[in-house]
């Protein structure tokens, strides 16, 4: 179902893509100006007219959209269409205050299904595949987004949602699940559960995992691939742009292909707002090119990544983004140094005997920031001699300090004492009173 259509979209050459982008950009700018008061005000204040946007280069003239704009216009004031054209709303899992809301017309839902289908397509799927969807169903875009994309391709969907690990394992075995969608930390937890229960991997048919919605590292990927016996594909999306489906890796696992005919990407310097060249890390910004209800111009994702313009081995010319290296807002500033939890994670995963669970605790003592990394003791690392264990802790400490260039304290804690997460993992506890 729809495989041919998707194949064509993924294999467009770069000129074709740019032509479509230019055409769609001009249209969406005009559409936003005409239908959303917020944008009309911004354009008028800047004395910018939709007609001023003539090429992709002119994107840099356009104003940014911030998460706060969505909060300020809660719930429906940024919708470009009347509510009778809206068939669904989703809202982000906001941790503070009101959630941010996005709406979908019938056509938006269709586009969304197509983009998610393009994500799934990258794992060489067919209608025979059975997808176990471990993303939450509800206001969160993960569950329903994946669901519609899978159905778009005629894949059998098990809408199990997240959590209830024993049931997930039972479905793996009994239904012969071939594709798994969930967060990387939950995939890791499922892999551990399979090991603990001694389930033989030969009884499982798992082949591909589409994992995303939180930052993770290559080393964590290797662990997950080993534990679950799958190809682990990194996927990227956010509800403001559409949900899952924005970008995904192909089997070469060398960057995430963005559906650039729908979402126009830029990397900018988060402090100055200026565009950054190919290969430079900065804040990822998207302009939605086709959405009807909740189109956004230059939406600031707060995710840190870089772009790759080169054609991929898989034949796709769509620009690739690196995996998300961190968040502009969960970046920690420790004694003036920028620290991303993902940096610490990749160091930990390289050390033999370190469990994939960790917690970062930031405190401030006598006006000095202290970074503590708690790591679980494992059977491999444990010794009956104090000095062996202290050496192990020191090895971790040295490896982290080499990467971060700041002093850290490494504390070994008992197995199973660090909180496990079935959704997005919360790795950082910042106790500083700033």
């Amino acid at each position, binding site marked *: 179902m729809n495989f041919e259509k998707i194949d064509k979209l993924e294999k467009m050459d770069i000129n074709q893509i740019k032509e479509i982008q230019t055409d769609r950009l001009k249209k969406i700018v005009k559409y936003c100006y005409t239908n959303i008061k917020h944008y009309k005000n911004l354009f008028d204040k800047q004395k910018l007219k939709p007609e001023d946007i003539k090429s992709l280069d002119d994107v840099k003239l356009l104003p940014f959209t911030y998460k706060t704009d969505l909060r300020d216009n809660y719930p429906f004031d940024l919708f470009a269409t009347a509510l009778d054209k809206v068939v669904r709303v989703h809202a982000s899992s906001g941790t503070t205050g009101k959630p941010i809301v996005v709406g979908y017309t019938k056509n938006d839902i269709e586009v969304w299904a197509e983009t998610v289908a393009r994500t799934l397509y990258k794992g060489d799927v067919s209608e025979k595949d059975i997808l176990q969807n471990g993303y939450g169903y509800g206001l969160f875009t993960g569950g329903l987004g994946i669901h519609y994309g899978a159905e778009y391709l005629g894949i059998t969907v098990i809408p199990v949602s997240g959590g209830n690990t024993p049931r997930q394992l039972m479905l793996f075995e009994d239904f012969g699940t071939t594709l798994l969608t969930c967060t990387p930390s939950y995939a890791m937890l499922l892999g551990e559960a399979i090991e603990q229960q001694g389930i033989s991997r030969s009884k499982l048919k798992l082949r591909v995992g589409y994992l995303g919605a939180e930052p993770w590292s290559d080393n964590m990927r290797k662990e997950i691939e080993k534990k679950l016996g799958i190809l682990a594909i990194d996927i990227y999306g956010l509800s403001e742009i559409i949900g899952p489906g924005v970008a995904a890796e192909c089997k070469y696992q060398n960057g995430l292909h963005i559906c650039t005919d729908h979402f126009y990407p830029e990397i900018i310097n988060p402090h100055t707002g200026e565009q950054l060249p190919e290969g430079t890390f900065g804040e990822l910004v998207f302009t939605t090119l086709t959405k009807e209800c909740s189109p956004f111009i230059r939406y600031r994702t707060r995710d840190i990544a870089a772009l790759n313009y080169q054609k991929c081995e898989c034949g796709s010319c769509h620009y690739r983004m690196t995996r998300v290296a961190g968040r502009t807002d969960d970046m920690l500033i420790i004694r003036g140094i920028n620290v991303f939890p993902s940096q610490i994670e990749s160091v930990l995963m390289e050390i033999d005997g370190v469990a994939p669970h960790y917690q970062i605790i930031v405190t401030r003592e006598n006006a000095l920031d202290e970074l503590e990394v708690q790591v679980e*003791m*494992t*059977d491999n690392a*444990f*010794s*009956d*001699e*104090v000095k062996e*264990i*202290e050496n192990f*802790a020191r090895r971790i400490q040295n490896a982290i300090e080499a990467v971060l260039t700041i002093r850290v304290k490494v*504390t*070994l*804690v*008992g*197995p*199973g*004492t660090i909180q496990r997460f079935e959704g997005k993992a919360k790795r950082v506890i910042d106790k500083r009173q700033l």
Partner: protein
Amino acid sequence: MLLKQLSIFLENKPGKLSEVTKVLKDNNINIRSLSMADTSDFGILRLIVPNVENVYKILKEHHFTVKITEVIAVKISDRPGGLNEILNYFSEENINVEYMYAFVNRSGDNAIIVFKVHNIQHAINILVKNNIEIFKYEDINTI
């Protein structure tokens, strides 16, 4: 010849030690000897118990980080200089004692001392050569 010791990882926090002793109590396991190594962050509890393999399994089931370590236990006469004699043999042969502790012995005139050394076979040879009686694990219920 070798004594099997359980080594258990503990965080240095109130209540952590009693989590272990509760499991032992609930399973009716009597501790024959113990030692605790502690640092500011963590501790290592070392135990000598009967049926060590079984206790190991029980602690594993309770998700403790635990391993079985081989140590040497020797009987020395309970008098001034008894321990010094053994340590002299070791130091003459350049054997480093990683840690040691004593049994509570309810019978006889002997003390039982547990040693952890790296070159365990070498240490045993020296003890045998000097007619030092090595405590056997099978005798654990006699003390």
